[in-house]
């Protein structure tokens, strides 16, 4: 179960810039995400979606500008759950070992109980003693999500989470993100095209060349944003 609404935090980008050599991954990006929002980010490959999420997680250092978290306990570093293309778990460990390890690192209370609960939630309790190396892409994604949820994150970031998933796993993913959204967690997810998952969003943003070119809360506009047909 992710953080209850009062613990979820907002995210604020102020004139953020990130360059990789000659290329601007993020250019003059200003964005404010309120606590509890579910934001979908659309954009072509290379538009800056992954960089935006990695900067939000403080994995990538911005060249210019500030990233701040609003709400939540001001003295603590906020817990962030991140699900990316890569699974971010160890192939040589079992699903349970992976989760217990990350739980210990993040000082999760009652780690054994929490891990067992999460494995149940993501439907992997009967495969908990198998090495992650033996898992399919869909199952690895489930482990990745369980890992992201371990410490009851205040902010959840998903980077094209549906990539490589079959229809069944994709449907499971959409359902799960929906549950997280309903429990009030702040979610920011980058999506490649309009999909089931996109319909969960309360807000859609389009990125191009590292800047926000469209931003709407009207569900009717979402399709246009994902199709790239914006003024």
């Amino acid at each position, binding site marked *: 179960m992710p953080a209850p609404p009062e613990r979820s935090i907002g995210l604020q980008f102020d004139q953020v810039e990130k360059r990789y050599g000659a290329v601007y991954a993020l250019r003059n990006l200003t964005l404010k995400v309120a606590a509890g929002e579910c934001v979908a980010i659309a954009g072509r490959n290379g538009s800056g979606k992954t960089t935006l999420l990695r900067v939000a997680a403080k994995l990538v250092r911005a*060249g210019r500008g500030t990233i701040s978290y609003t709400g939540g306990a001001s003295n603590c570093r906020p817990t962030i759950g991140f699900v990316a293309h890569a699974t971010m778990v160890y192939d040589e460990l079992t699903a349970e070992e992976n989760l217990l390890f990350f739980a210990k690192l993040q000082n999760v209370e009652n780690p054994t109980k929490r891990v067992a609960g999460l494995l149940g939630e993501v439907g992997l309790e009967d495969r908990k003693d198998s090495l992650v190396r033996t898992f399919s892409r869909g199952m690895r994604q489930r482990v990745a999500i369980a890992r992201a949820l371990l410490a009851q994150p205040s902010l959840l970031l998903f980077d094209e989470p549906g990539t490589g998933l079959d229809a069944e796993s994709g449907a499971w993913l959409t359902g799960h993100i929906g549950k997280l959204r309903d429990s009030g967690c702040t979610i920011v997810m980058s999506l490649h095209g309009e999909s089931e998952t996109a319909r969960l969003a309360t807000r859609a943003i389009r990125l191009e060349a590292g800047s926000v070119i469209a931003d709407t809360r009207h569900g009717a506009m979402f399709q246009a944003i994902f199709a790239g047909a914006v003024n």
Partner: protein
Amino acid sequence: MLRRITLGALAIGLVACATYASFYIAPEERTMGAIQRIFYFHASTAWAGETTFFVCFVANLLYIWKRKPQYDWLGVTCAEVGVACITVVLITGPIWAKPVWGIWWTWDARLTSTFVLWILYICYLLLRTLVDEAERRALLSALFGVFAFIDVPIVFGAIRWWRTQHPAPVIMGGEGSGLDPIMKKVFLFNVLAMHVLAVFLIVERYFLEKTKHDVELLQREAEAR
């Protein structure tokens, strides 16, 4: 531009005077004869090289802290000029040693340590060629530069301790040998001349790096249109 030309002229002038002083003003050394005069060139270049590496270290620290590309340009510039200085030291050392001891290399503590120092900064430059992206390259080489510079005194200390266990001829008369007062003045003048030359080379190389950066910027803007 005028200032750079003036600096260049000053550097060349000082080096010319220093060379003249080394050959005609300094008295001939009693035991080693004329070949000893290479000492003025050898030791002063070594000092200039060490100063340059210190500036490189400071530039590295500043880059890690401030992330301004100018500090990276200064770092690579100083590393290159420093390597050039040390190359001269490593060539003039054996040239001195051969006529005096009959062999090119005696595993003298200072020369051996200097060799390791040279290799360390060659590695710094090599590392830079193996990282493509500019900011990554700047950060990684700055971090390696910090490690390398901090290692330098330890290398010198360890090798000096090592050589005390295995005594061998010492090039350039070792730590305790004193200098005749005129020799000392000529030496210090050489030190000044070499430092000014190093500064001139650093300035020129820095502007080369800056121009390279400006050209890339223009290319990028042209492509964006």
